[in-house]
């Protein structure tokens, strides 16, 4: 059975929302961006060649729309808006602190790195698919993910001696967590 164009649009909406949130860092802006991208896709459906990579086509439309919106108006995102809902989970307090720090660190990454990391880690996309979806070379896609991961590690596990007190607490907690996970004693 062939999936219709409109069915494909509906089925990719959850992933578009994640991509939009990764780019905008703001829930309301992400919803607007998805809606705008869907409108663009519906208008341009005649240009989509059936049998070709629909997810890449759709992710690229959303990305182009995001860039276009950025050019029209300066980014007015609320940097703390992204992950607030997840902090209200029943996870341990320390885990919530570490998660909040991760959310803040994600928001500090450049948008293209944040988008790349989310699409690979959360969506399980291959580098080839990421390259197609974002219109870049495979090497560039790899590099974005690599730099995002390395930057997060530096921020989150960075030099405890020079970190601010709140950061130091999170770094110590995270190091302890990771040391537990690897069966080692944390030397924090």
């Amino acid at each position, binding site marked *: 059975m062939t999936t219709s164009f409109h069915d494909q649009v509906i089925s990719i909406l*959850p992933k578009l929302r994640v991509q939009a949130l990764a780019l905008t860092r703001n829930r309301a802006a992400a919803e607007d961006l998805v809606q705008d991208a*869907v409108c663009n896709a519906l208008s341009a459906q005649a240009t989509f060649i059936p049998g070709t990579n629909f997810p890449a086509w759709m992710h690229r439309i959303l990305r182009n729309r995001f860039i276009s919106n950025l050019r029209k108006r300066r980014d007015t995102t609320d940097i703390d808006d992204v992950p607030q809902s997840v902090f209200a989970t029943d996870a341990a307090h320390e885990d919530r602190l570490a998660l909040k720090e991760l959310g803040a660190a994600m928001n500090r990454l450049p948008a293209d790195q944040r988008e790349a990391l989310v699409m690979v880690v959360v969506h399980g996309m*291959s580098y080839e698919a990421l390259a197609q979806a974002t219109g870049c070379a495979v090497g560039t896609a790899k590099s974005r993910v690599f730099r995002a991961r390395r930057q997060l590690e530096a921020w989150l596990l960075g030099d405890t001696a020079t970190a601010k007190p709140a950061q130091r607490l999170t770094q110590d907690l995270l190091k302890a967590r990771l040391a537990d996970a690897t069966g080692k004693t944390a030397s924090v």
Partner: protein
Amino acid sequence: MKHPDMNDPKPKKATKRPGESAKPEAFDLWLKRGLHQIYDGVAKEPIPDELLKLIEDDRKK
């Protein structure tokens, strides 16, 4: 599906700081779990009716 190694494209140098005892794999695992906690909820939220209506209206054209 090929699942890429996030330590690509270059082999990581042994640049551990003193006192840094966690393995890179442990950080990757924690990062993956954390990102899922942050972003999965958004993907699971119901699609707004107006967006679905927009798509369905276009389908009828």
